[in-house]
């Protein structure tokens, strides 16, 4: 597994551009390469290495659930230790569940659910509760102050 501290300055720069400044052009990697004085082939090859190592999860679009009219909510439940895997299995099978974590709290299982409408989300939660035999609390956002999942990579000391 390739960790950040093994990455070259060039790779870090590529990661920054890929996250914050991906060109909306027909040949984005050529344009990135041009800015950095590299070959397009080299940029693509470096990105391939970082994808294969797992550092880059994917390259694509990050859509905004709210703007698309979708409803999303953070859910939590209290699951007895011995039932965690069974309950998690049921929750993870549900379409629209994108994150699911065991957390160190009385509410020990936390997941996110996104659905086309609030009604659909509530129905899904109802059936998850009855299928898994658990009680789920739903905590939708009232106000969003920040959603930004990109990481500044250029400063090696910051890591």
């Amino acid at each position, binding site marked *: 597994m390739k*960790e*950040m*501290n093994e990455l070259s300055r060039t790779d870090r720069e590529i*990661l920054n551009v*890929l*996250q*914050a*400044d*991906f060109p909306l*052009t*027909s040949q984005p990697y*050529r344009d990135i390469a041009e800015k950095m004085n590299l070959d397009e082939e080299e940029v*693509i090859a470096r990105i391939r290495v970082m994808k294969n190592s*797992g550092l*880059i*999860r*994917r*390259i*694509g*679009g*990050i*859509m*905004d*659930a709210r*703007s*698309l*009219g*979708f409803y999303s909510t*953070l859910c939590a439940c209290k699951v007895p230790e011995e039932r965690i895997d069974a309950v*998690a299995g049921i*929750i*993870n099978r549900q379409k*629209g*569940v*994108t*994150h*699911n*974590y*065991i*957390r*160190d*709290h009385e*509410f020990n299982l*936390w*997941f996110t659910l*996104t659905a086309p409408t609030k009604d659909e989300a509530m129905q899904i939660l109802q059936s998850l509760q009855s299928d898994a035999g658990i009680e789920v*609390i739903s*905590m*939708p*956002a*009232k*106000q*969003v*102050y*920040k*959603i*930004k999942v*990109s*990481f500044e990579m250029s400063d090696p000391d910051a*890591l």
Partner: protein
Amino acid sequence: MPYDSTDREIMRFLQGDIPLESRPYQSLAEKIELSEEEILLRLKKLREKGLLRRMGAVLRHRQAGFAVNAMVAWKLENEEEADQAGKIMAGYKEISHCYIREVPPDFDYSVFSMIHVKNEEHLAEIIEEISLQTGIRKYIIIRSSRELKKESMQYF
């Protein structure tokens, strides 16, 4: 609906991993019989409208050097503190997400922040600083011990 069926096709393509090749939109263009120029134009419009929040790479935090990824939930003394607290937290580069959430009476920590840092010392520093700045003294760090699922939403 702020998008049509062609936009939907484009977003179906974007929500996955686009091909790592010189012309990543070429295969989509052929499939939906639209020029690459038209696709790019629509992409820009989707971004202007906010449907497409960002285009580019999604990294795995831990591998990117952010070893500590903590959810911190804060308890407001009164609702009027909420807005200022949200704005202060949003200003931190270490905070990726900040929301005020509707919460049930048995869990009254309504301000949620996701903090990503290199180490525990830095996490403690940031929490202390935020607590001082916002005046919110009650908070809980809800650490994850196991990731059971993490994927991008498949909208279409």
